[in-house]
């Protein structure tokens, strides 16, 4: 058994291994794009390990991918490695620690991240001294039921209606009325990231938050799959022609109950003014209603945004496990990451979870 670096040519074997273990994998073009179109990978001209594989008798029996992200805080850039496509054949599960070791002990990387950990991965990451992120209420998803009748009927039809969820459904019928402020704002809907997204990071540098890059090149790379399949909605908000910020909604299907779902993965305002925040969220819900989607769902975001979402009528749903863990290799980031739950504003966009909607 050997641990070796992955090459782009390994895709077919990794595909077979992933499918054998009933897991999801991107198609070959999307998979290779994780690096070939990645701004950092291109900056360093490929000097980056794309992942590690465990090889036994000339066969790949375990894999972990390694994707570069850039995070920013107060204008300073930090290099993060995001773990993805972590799969190990059942009969070789013992070697998964070795794969994790290679991912979590990279040189010159400030942060090692996963935001799609299952229960076992959560325990293993913590054993390697990764920590759950310190962020207000991250464990709870927020859901807005647009089509309440369909949601309840589908749940019953699938004989999967969980009676403990009755309070959640009842609560959704009593959603607080959206208090739409006087029309101060205007909106533009696009299906990509235009020139307003150039140098967005510098506009956000005084936000006091840590975030993964919102510049045009990074967002275009991260969301390329959804742009190509026309499942991306970018909603820009303006006040008197001044660009204030944006939201991103990804159209997808919630597989268990076959709901048409809009996942709100970006919610960025340069100045988190409550009225603007409320207005852009309400507009997201209007979009959902207009295109006949069943629900809008949210993972993460800071306390201010989450409270606004709840005020508007989003309800909480606890996730099965805490899936966002981070190992910090840069001591300068300790205070930022672990001392104040208000500094981080992490969501699906800040890890590999964004690639599998």
């Amino acid at each position, binding site marked *: 058994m050997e641990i070796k670096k992955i090459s782009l040519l390994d895709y077919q074997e990794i595909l077979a291994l992933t499918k054998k273990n009933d897991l999801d994998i991107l198609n070959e073009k999307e998979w290779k794009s994780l690096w070939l179109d990645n701004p950092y990978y291109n900056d360093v001209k490929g000097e980056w390990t794309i992942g590690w594989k465990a090889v036994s008798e000339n066969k790949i029996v375990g894999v972990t991918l390694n994707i570069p992200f850039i995070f920013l805080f107060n204008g300073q850039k930090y290099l993060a490695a995001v773990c993805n496509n972590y799969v190990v054949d059942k009969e070789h*599960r013992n*070697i998964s*620690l070795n794969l994790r*070791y290679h991912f979590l002990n990279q040189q010159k990387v400030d942060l090692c991240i996963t935001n799609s950990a299952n229960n*076992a991965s959560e325990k*293993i990451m913590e054993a390697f*001294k990764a920590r759950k992120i310190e962020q207000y209420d991250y464990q709870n998803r927020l859901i807005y039921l647009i089509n309440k009748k369909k949601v309840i009927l589908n749940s019953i039809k699938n004989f999967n209606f969980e009676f403990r969820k009755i309070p959640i459904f009842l609560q959704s019928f009593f959603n607080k009325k959206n208090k739409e402020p006087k029309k101060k704002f205007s909106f533009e809907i696009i299906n990509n990231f235009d020139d307003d997204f150039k140098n967005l990071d510098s506009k956000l540098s005084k936000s006091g938050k840590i975030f993964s890059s919102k510049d045009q090149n990074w967002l275009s790379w991260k969301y390329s799959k959804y742009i190509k399949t026309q499942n991306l909605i970018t909603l820009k908000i303006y006040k008197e022609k001044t660009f204030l910020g944006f939201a991103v909604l990804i159209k997808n299907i919630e597989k268990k109950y076959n709901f048409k779902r809009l996942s709100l993965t970006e919610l960025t305002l340069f100045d988190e003014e409550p009225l603007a925040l409320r207005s852009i969220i309400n507009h997201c819900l209007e979009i959902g209603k207009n295109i006949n989607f069943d629900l809008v769902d949210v993972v993460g975001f800071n306390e201010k945004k989450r409270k606004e979402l709840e005020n508007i009528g989003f309800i909480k749903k606890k996730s099965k496990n805490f899936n966002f863990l981070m190992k910090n290799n840069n001591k300068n980031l300790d205070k930022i990451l672990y001392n104040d739950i208000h500094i981080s504003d992490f969501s699906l966009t800040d890890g590999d979870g964004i690639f599998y909607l």
Partner: protein
Amino acid sequence: MDIDKIIEITIAEFNDSQSEYEISNKKDFLLIGNKSSLDSLANVNFLTRLEKNIFKNKNKEIDLINKIFLIKKENIYLDDLTNFLKENL
């Protein structure tokens, strides 16, 4: 308390904590490697307990799960772990 004793106690604790896996207190017991009888969670369980017992008895913190791979062997036996701890604590 010496390292051998700490390991012995930790093995007993691990074995008592669950019934699915058993570690034998033998030099050639394979902890990490392709043919090990332990899965990764079992290894994490054992090594985390060992870290705590080392701290309790020797007042020394060791990041064992990250450090054990410095042994740089495809197969890591109980004897390898014992020698590593004796050299590094």
